[in-house]
């Protein structure tokens, strides 16, 4: 079954994001013994966020691999497993630690299908908790999507509701190409929602319209999309209609949904935590300019991370870095009034 929105189902349970990751992975491992998990402490501790809690007992150390502290190895081993008919789901403890594996992911995983002319494929998933708002400072808060989405051959997805986590994680595991499955760590326990008990998938590369509105389109993902929904709710009271689009996937990028909305509202804003410069917002804005220039009533606006190397620690500095609901509300009102 394929469902785009949070379609109702008879048998659902309310859960948070990390629970959705846990239950989905567990169910997929029960269903198909080619699925296995590997990463730092994924067995012994169930991962630092407990996404694989209890897995070692249930599935054993052959399918729940506690690896050395070595991201290059984790990615490399996952690639090899995937080349040879397994469906590995590798965990990077934090997205910030993925860079030793950059080489494996970019130079190897992304290119193997292409360079072998389709003889080999790398159906692996790499899960990584990303994003700020947890006082993690420079090395536990980063956004990494732009680095990887730049690379043809990789899929990069950013689901941020429990419903999407389940549907997209199943889809990512089934996908025959490498998928970076980015889970916003601030949403892990913050965001709750109903999850159907039945197995369903959500296609990679379909955005979701979270609130409808006629005045401004705002495109976001991860924690930021939740903030945008909140800001849209406040503006609704003032008679300003904000259409919030949750991209859910950076690559493939669902411009159809974005363009349809922008053609209706004539005004577009893109919001992300990641650095503004050469970030996802630049790509979305460029495509809006290419495809919907004549429909625009205002310049496209980007609200995004400042040009500083990483999220600073001090809460005031962190706050300065991370857009919040108040700031989004002001920016959206300004665009609506343009």
């Amino acid at each position: 079954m394929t469902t785009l929105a949070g379609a109702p189902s008879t048998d659902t349970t309310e859960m948070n994001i990390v629970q959705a990751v846990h239950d989905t992975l567990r169910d997929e491992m029960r269903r198909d013994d080619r699925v296995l998990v590997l990463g730092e402490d994924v067995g012994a501790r169930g991962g630092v966020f407990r996404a694989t809690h209890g897995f070692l007992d249930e599935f054993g150390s052959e399918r729940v691999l506690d690896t050395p502290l070595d991201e290059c190895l984790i990615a490399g081993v996952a690639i090899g497993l995937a080349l040879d008919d397994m469906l590995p789901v590798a965990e990077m403890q934090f997205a910030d630690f993925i860079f030793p594996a950059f080489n494996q992911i970019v130079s190897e995983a992304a290119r193997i299908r292409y360079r072998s002319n389709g003889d080999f494929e790398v159906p692996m998933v790499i899960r990584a908790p990303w994003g700020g708002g947890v006082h993690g400072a420079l090395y536990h808060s980063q956004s990494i999507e732009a680095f990887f989405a730049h690379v043809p051959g990789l899929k990069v997805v950013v689901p941020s509701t429990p419903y999407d986590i389940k549907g997209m994680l199943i889809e990512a595991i089934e996908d025959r190409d490498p998928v970076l499955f980015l889970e916003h760590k601030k949403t892990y326990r913050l965001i709750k929602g109903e999850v159907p008990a039945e197995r369903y998938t959500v296609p990679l590369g379909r955005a979701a319209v979270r609130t409808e509105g006629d005045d401004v389109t705002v495109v976001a993902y991860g924690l930021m999309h939740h903030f945008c929904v909140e800001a849209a709710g406040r503006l609704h009271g003032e008679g300003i209609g904000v259409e919030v689009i949750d991209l859910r996937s950076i690559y493939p990028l669902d411009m159809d949904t974005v363009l349809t909305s922008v053609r209706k509202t004539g005004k577009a804003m893109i919001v992300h935590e990641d650095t503004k410069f050469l970030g996802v917002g630049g790509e979305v804005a460029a495509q809006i300019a290419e495809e919907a220039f004549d429909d625009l009533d205002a310049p496209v606006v980007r609200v995004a991370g400042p040009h500083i190397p990483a999220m600073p620690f001090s809460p005031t500095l962190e706050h300065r870095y991370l857009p919040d609901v108040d700031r989004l509300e002001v920016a959206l009102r300004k665009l609506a009034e343009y």
Partner: protein
Amino acid sequence: MTRSKTASADAAAEAEAQEGEVTSGDLSLLATMLRMRAFEQRIYDAFSENKLRGPTHLGIGQEAIAAGFAAALEPKDSVLSTYRGHDHVIAVGAPLDEVAGEILGRATGLCGGKGGSMHLASAHHGHYGCYAIVGAHLPIACGVAWSAKLRGTDEVTVCFFGDGTTNIGAFHEALNIAAVWKLPILFVCENNLYMEYTRTSEVTAVERPAADRAASYGLEALVVDGNDVTAVLEVARDAVAAARSGNGPLLIEAITYRQGGHSRADPGDYRKEDEVAEWLTKDPITAYRNALEDRGADPGELDDIQAKAGAEVEAAFESAFGAPVPDVLQAHTDVWADGGSAWRN
């Protein structure tokens, strides 16, 4: 994945009796090495004649290692090698015209012309790819080996790499995990003494860059004369048997020498003349031919084998040179599982 390794595997079955009578397996092993040599020389000529673009890294002088190991393998086994990998792909039985076609960038090449010399691969022959990021394939090989184990098979993975590779982290990472997970894998270091221009001994504190480190990770290591194909085959057979029966991993350091430069752009003149001259006297193919003659092989028959190898290579190149280059639109194929490269949904 269907496999069809050819010549070398047959050779293994028959290459018994190193002393005494020459078997068809022995002759087949010689033929494999002669094919590799003729192939690499044809590549060298092609780039001297400006008929070939891009970097190529020849294995001239190192043939015995790939030939010996491939002869000990079965079709179900897996091989990974480096950018200096023509020999390994030939050894597992990939068709010469497709290998040549790939190196010449033809549509008929092993990878449709997308990979080229440094990135050959043949799923059909259990060759999981040549890797041009030094060291990157060692962890990948561990994944392949883990899969073999998980699937309850007795498949063996052989991972070839150079001496210089022993100083990059991935080498150490892979050895460690292979030992911890008791993987059915053979790490085969082709120690040709040099990285690109620097002698590995200048940047390495131990004498045997691979073998001397193996013990730190709990691996057994063997050192073998990589120019003696009989010795390589013997070591390979034992090592493959050990790995197959669950006694892996193992590391084998095969000492050899590349007779030419690192790549086409390198004349190799940073090496002393007498050093090169000395190694030329240890040429693995000449040595093996002499050994076969000593054991009573008919020189005329050996000449015929050599001529046949030359002719096979010539025919393969003729076919490859005559083959079409890929349609430009092929550049946009096989980026994604649907076969395409669409960047919008």
